[in-house]
């Protein structure tokens, strides 16, 4: 376990950021369970993929920077990559689902653009 030399306020700040980020991810997963149709559900996990991910990575960068005594921005790489990739995956998935629904003539399928 690291962080023995950390000031108390820094530990609380790191923990608060991580717990709030995890709470966002949990809310997103809860939405995945509770919402009724696929087109509603596809919105829910983005909560964890954007805000939850950002808060946890900021917390991780803060902790590493405080422990090592220099600026460590390594984790921002994950953040940049996920910010670029999440919209692409969910757009492709939603379009595939809309294509299937239209093809099968499911009621409530989104109209052709």
């Amino acid at each position, binding site marked *: 376990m*690291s962080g*023995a030399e950390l000031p108390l306020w820094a530990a*609380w700040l790191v*923990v608060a950021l991580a*717990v709030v*980020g*995890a709470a966002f991810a949990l809310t997103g997963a809860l939405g995945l369970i509770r919402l009724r149709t696929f087109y509603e559900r596809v919105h829910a996990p983005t909560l964890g993929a954007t805000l939850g991910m950002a808060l946890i990575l900021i917390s*991780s960068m803060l902790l590493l920077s405080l422990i090592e005594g220099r600026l460590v921005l390594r984790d921002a790489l994950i953040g940049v990559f996920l910010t670029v990739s999440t919209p692409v995956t969910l757009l*492709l998935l939603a379009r595939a689902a809309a294509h299937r629904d239209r093809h099968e003539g499911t009621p409530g399928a989104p109209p052709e653009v």
Partner: protein
Amino acid sequence: MSATTVLDWGLGLAQGMLVLAMALAAWRMLRGPRAQDRILGLDTLYLNGMLAIVVHGMRTGSGLYFEAALILGMIGFTATVALAKFLMQGEVIQ
């Protein structure tokens, strides 16, 4: 309370919440009802797993988990795109 205690309990709580989120996503992946719901559940599952690895790396204070999280993010992205393309066209590469 010392800083070590705060970090240990707080990050443990964050990890527990992420594992619960993974369990909910796994439930959606197993339950369906359709293929797109399962893919969405898998996407959420790997994303929350990656966040749990990052938090575990913070708890241990080791930099080793960063690479694992980065690679998991990339592989998950590729997997979801391939599955979505498969749903759309019935083949991954045309």
